[in-house]
């Protein structure tokens, strides 16, 4: 086997320029794909992290029908305490759940006493919310920092609302809202700070303490609009959702159907579509890479067989078994694939390192200064390099097969 490898390598070196050009094509292809996967993967991970860790959590539990009418923030679809307790029991019992936080969501009028605008408000348990959305505190641009995310009587105001109404940290404002019975109530708050906008639903919400929310909404019992849940492995959101759906299936509504529903983050934000599009683009780029490798290596191997017909005739005449002739040419293709993959991977890793050293920043929506930090996993490198090597061998198969089946007399007569 070692000698066959050596002979194959020497045959490749026989046509140095052609081997170099073909390898270069494979190198450029694999480097481009790995860089693309690293950059888009970094962008995707960053955006998913932003969305889940500063707003949504990895999944959410709602009363059935709430998500379908989420735009109107319906208060009549809050979970009553008994239902919320059953959700808590399921969440406490699930080993994949790292933390969860209850929220009350509602729409309110936000006033600086001279101007008014509408705002979506989240009533949160500051300590639990910190565990579920650890990046939320980092979105606070000014004002009082440290300690609880928000204290009783304080509000975190979305920066666009603060700018529009020209209010700042320390100012007193008022929230006016209508509860589910139609009763209007108002409460003054001190602005703790302004919150940077984030991409996706909830990216321009205000935050108050959950007890203030209950007081403002005149709740007679501690209702919950949603539980935001953080799980141990974000990529398992769909699986954990399915498990929780099963576990909560016993909580019935008056019609005897499930009273609660669970949604992973992908179902709660349109960014999931962008993430899917990135995956489709990545697949398309991989298909292009496969095509490039296939055509390039098949071309070079067809040429190699054509140029060595007499040589093939000679080795066949002296008794070389067809399978060994097949192996000789397959190994040439394999070596081209391995060489291209190795150099391409090295180039792409160097490129990824350089991009991390240069610390390139970019904007996405209203978010600025996002840092491009491409990373590539061993699994991606191995799967893409492996795919290229397999395709290289497959591309050599037809020419190698042709060589192994060649009639020695015809081959020896070839001019």
């Amino acid at each position, binding site marked *: 086997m070692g*000698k066959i490898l050596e002979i194959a390598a020497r045959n490749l070196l026989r046509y140095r320029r052609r081997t170099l050009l073909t390898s270069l094509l494979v190198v450029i292809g694999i480097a481009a794909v790995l860089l693309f996967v690293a950059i888009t993967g970094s962008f995707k991970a960053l955006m998913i992290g932003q969305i889940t860790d500063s707003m949504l959590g990895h999944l959410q539990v709602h009363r059935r029908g709430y998500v379908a009418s989420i735009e109107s923030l319906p208060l009549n679809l809050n979970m009553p305490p008994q239902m919320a307790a059953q959700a808590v029991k399921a969440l406490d019992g699930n080993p994949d759940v790292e933390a969860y936080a209850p929220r009350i969501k509602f729409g309110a009028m936000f006033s600086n006493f001279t101007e008014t605008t509408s705002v979506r408000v989240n009533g949160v348990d500051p300590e639990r919310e910190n565990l579920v959305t650890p990046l939320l505190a980092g979105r606070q641009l000014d004002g009082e920092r440290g300690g609880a995310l928000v204290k009783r009587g304080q509000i975190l105001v979305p920066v666009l609302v603060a700018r529009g109404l020209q209010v700042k940290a320390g100012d007193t404002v008022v929230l006016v809202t209508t509860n589910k019975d139609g009763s209007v109530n108002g409460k003054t708050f001190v602005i703790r700070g302004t919150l940077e906008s984030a991409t996706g639903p909830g990216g321009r919400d205000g935050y108050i303490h959950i007890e203030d929310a209950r007081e403002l909404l005149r709740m007679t019992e501690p209702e919950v609009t949603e539980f935001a849940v953080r799980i141990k492995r974000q990529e398992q959101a769909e699986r954990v959702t399915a498990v929780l759906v099963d576990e909560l299936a016993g909580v019935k509504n008056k019609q005897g159907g499930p009273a609660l529903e669970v949604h992973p983050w992908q179902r709660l934000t349109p960014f999931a579509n962008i993430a899917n599009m990135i995956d489709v683009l990545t697949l398309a780029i991989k298909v292009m890479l496969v095509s490039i490798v296939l055509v390039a290596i098949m071309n070079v191997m067809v040429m190699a067989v054509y140029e060595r017909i007499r040589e093939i*005739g000679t080795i066949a*005449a002296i*008794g070389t*078994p067809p399978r*060994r002739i097949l192996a000789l040419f397959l190994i040439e293709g394999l070596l081209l694939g391995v060489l291209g993959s190795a150099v391409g991977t090295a180039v792409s890793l160097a490129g990824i390192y350089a991009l991390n050293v240069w610390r390139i920043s970019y904007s996405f929506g209203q978010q600025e200064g996002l840092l491009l930090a491409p990373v590539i996993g061993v699994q991606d490198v191995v799967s893409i390099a492996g795919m290229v090597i397999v395709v290289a061998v497959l591309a050599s198969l037809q020419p190698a097969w042709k060589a192994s089946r060649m009639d*020695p*007399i015809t081959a020896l007569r070839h001019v």
Partner: protein
Amino acid sequence: MSLVSAVQLAKTYRAGDVDVPAVRGVDFAIEPGSFVAFVGPSGSGKSTLLNMIGCLDKPSSGRLTVLDTDVATLDRRAGAEFRGRHIGFIFQDFNLIPVLTAYENIEYPLMMVQNWPQARRREQVMGLLSAVGMADQAAKRPDQLSGGQKQRVAVARALVANSKLVLADEPTANLDHDTAYRIIGLMRKMRDELKTTFVFSTHDPKIMREAEVTFMLEDGRLAQNSGSAHHG
């Protein structure tokens, strides 16, 4: 027992709609250890006969046995195995593998066909390199060798697997006269030392005279023979 035996051996090629007879019902036998030449002008059927003896081609009719094996019964794989085990080839254009050194070219059949262990290969190859006078050229590649040196390497390659029969199709056609004589002399010397049967084709009357047994071919038929071989 003859090493090669042909009875009413014929080969016809099809060129479009026309049948072209290359060998027309020849009978001959070649004894072990003989030094045989098939002689005749271009197109007389010499190469076709050698190809059939070498199991590279199959007869259209008649019977051809080589080492007691009916070559018509060998399929592609069995034919390759039979050639690798029993027959060595020397070609007009030397046909050495350009990426291999002289040593590696000779070693090739032992490594790629016979799977000999390395130590045994080395001993066999070095012995043959010395026997053909190429020991000092072992590390050179074919493009660094003269025509005569290449053919010496080819002779060694044909003999390296202890072949019982060596077939050489016009082995001296691309060599100058002196070199051609030396190559024929080398082949004869190897025959004497190893008792291997050599069968070669030529159209050169001077080279022809070096053979112990000569078969004259004309238009696919045996015209006459000389020496001790049988002619039907």
